[in-house]
């Protein structure tokens, strides 16, 4: 690990003072400490934000508000989250391990870095880690990599489970800097790699995530997260699906669908949503709606199974959700 200075401020204002490109904010540490050990991330200043008043879970007429420092395990266990936003709790419980969920914060979860093995290995070229050095994954081991939103410079998949249902539910991220605050929809918070894979989101170097708001909706309570992976537990997704349906009788009145494990960012599937809306919730509807879910996918040597696996994951999620009514 490279040397850095360490600070433990008690207010957001104090934490943001002097923050810049060489500052890293430390919450749970499950990504940051790991990547500092690997020297993938080499900040000059580490600002421990765990003493900031950025905790709390509240539910009101606008929706669910979660402080950035709430831990994954606490959010997953919250009765209001489980009842009103089941796929959010499910995505959290299917993430990582109990120890990591006790440590990792919600803000940190949204900012966790890709698990691409080349990104994590400083001895190999990686455009995300070292812009212009090349992408080792294009012709390398790319079984876990993205097929949607990729570019010639980067095919790293976004690792967060939580971000998948949050994107489906039009979650808003709240940001603070020394100049003030702003709120950004999570869907546009994440950027595509394009020619600048080192940029992953619109967060500025001097900004901090303070919390998120998941809007209230008639469909969030009828939702499900399904995760498909190489082992049964403690593994990142090959594919995952977050589905929420608003129903009138047997008819789908509104649908929210997003996918994980397949995209360079959490992948909202608005075409699938449109194809479900107004139709009866039947197997035929589900099969027809997902036909074009992976349109535009660019599979590589080891991940060519992902488009088909994505379609089946979506059908399974929709079917299980419908059967759970």
């Amino acid at each position, binding site marked *: 690990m490279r040397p850095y200075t*360490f600070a433990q401020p008690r207010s957001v204002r104090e934490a943001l003072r002097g923050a810049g490109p060489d500052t890293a904010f430390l919450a749970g540490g499950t990504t940051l400490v790991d990547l500092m050990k690997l020297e993938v991330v080499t900040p000059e200043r580490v600002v421990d934000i765990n003493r900031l008043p950025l905790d709390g879970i509240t539910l009101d007429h606008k929706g669910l508000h979660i402080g950035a420092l709430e831990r994954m395990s606490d959010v997953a266990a919250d009765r209001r989250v489980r009842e009103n936003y089941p796929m959010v709790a499910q995505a959290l419980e299917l993430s990582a391990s109990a*120890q990591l969920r006790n440590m990792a914060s919600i803000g940190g979860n949204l900012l966790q870095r890709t698990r691409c093995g080349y990104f994590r290995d400083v001895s190999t070229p990686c455009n995300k880690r070292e812009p212009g050095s090349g992408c080792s994954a294009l012709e390398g081991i790319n079984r876990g990599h993205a097929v949607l939103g990729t570019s010639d410079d980067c095919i790293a998949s976004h690792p967060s489970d939580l971000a998948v249902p949050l994107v489906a539910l039009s979650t808003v991220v709240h940001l603070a800097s020394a100049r003030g605050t702003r709120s950004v929809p999570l869907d546009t918070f994440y950027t595509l790699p394009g020619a600048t894979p080192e940029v992953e989101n619109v967060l500025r170097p001097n900004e901090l995530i303070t919390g998120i708001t998941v809007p209230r909706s008639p469909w969030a309570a009828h939702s499900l997260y399904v995760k498909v992976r190489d082992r049964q537990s403690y593994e990142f997704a090959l594919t995952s699906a977050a589905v929420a349906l608003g129903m009138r009788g047997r008819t789908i009145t509104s649908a929210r669908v997003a996918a994980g494990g397949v995209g360079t960012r959490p992948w909202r599937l608005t075409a699938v949503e449109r194809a479900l809306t107004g139709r009866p919730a039947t197997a035929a509807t589900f099969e027809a709606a997902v036909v074009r879910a992976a349109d535009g996918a660019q599979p590589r040597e080891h991940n060519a199974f992902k488009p088909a696996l994505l379609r089946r994951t979506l059908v399974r999620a929709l079917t299980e959700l419908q059967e759970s009514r």
Partner: protein
Amino acid sequence: MNPENDAGHGRSGVSRRNFLGGGLVAAAVTPLLNATAEAEAAEAASATAGGVAQVLVRAAVNGAPVTVLVDPRATLLDTLRERLDLKGTKKGCDRGQCGACTVHVDGRRVLSCLTLAASTTGHEVTTIEGLADGDRLHPMQQAFIEHDGLQCGFCTPGQIMSAVAMVDDEGPARSDDEIRERMSGNICRCSAYPRIVDAIRDAQQVMR
């Protein structure tokens, strides 16, 4: 587990020997316990190792107050093992992937390899050494012995710390499948899993 490997695979050239050497110099001039707050603060302000300001940590470890000056890069795992001589907590992968380093912070199971010692001030740390009540083993320790829930034993402290918090902090598991899922962060390369599950199932009956 390579002792030369503590500073990671990176390119900093900071060897474990240099890194710990700096820490030990600092330790030699800093009493671990019972220093006055002002003296500690003064020392912390002036203490540097390799040009990096050291951080004064005041925490409780296994019920006893501990004051220790650390490099801001030091993990809780290395601090427990190398500075406080609590070697029951094991260093497996050192990357948050195996669970061997599991300890409790404020009663919750966490990975000490991804926890910076510098951020533990004001918190209560419990390690495997703090589990028994004198010579009386914790029911989970007893159950691991009775069920032979180990082979080489390297993952065992982490398994036991994880299992104790699983029951005490999060609530007993209702099935063997649930034990397996909730313990999935603790890898046993000898694959003693069936007996680990047996031990936890039994111990949680006693722990109620």
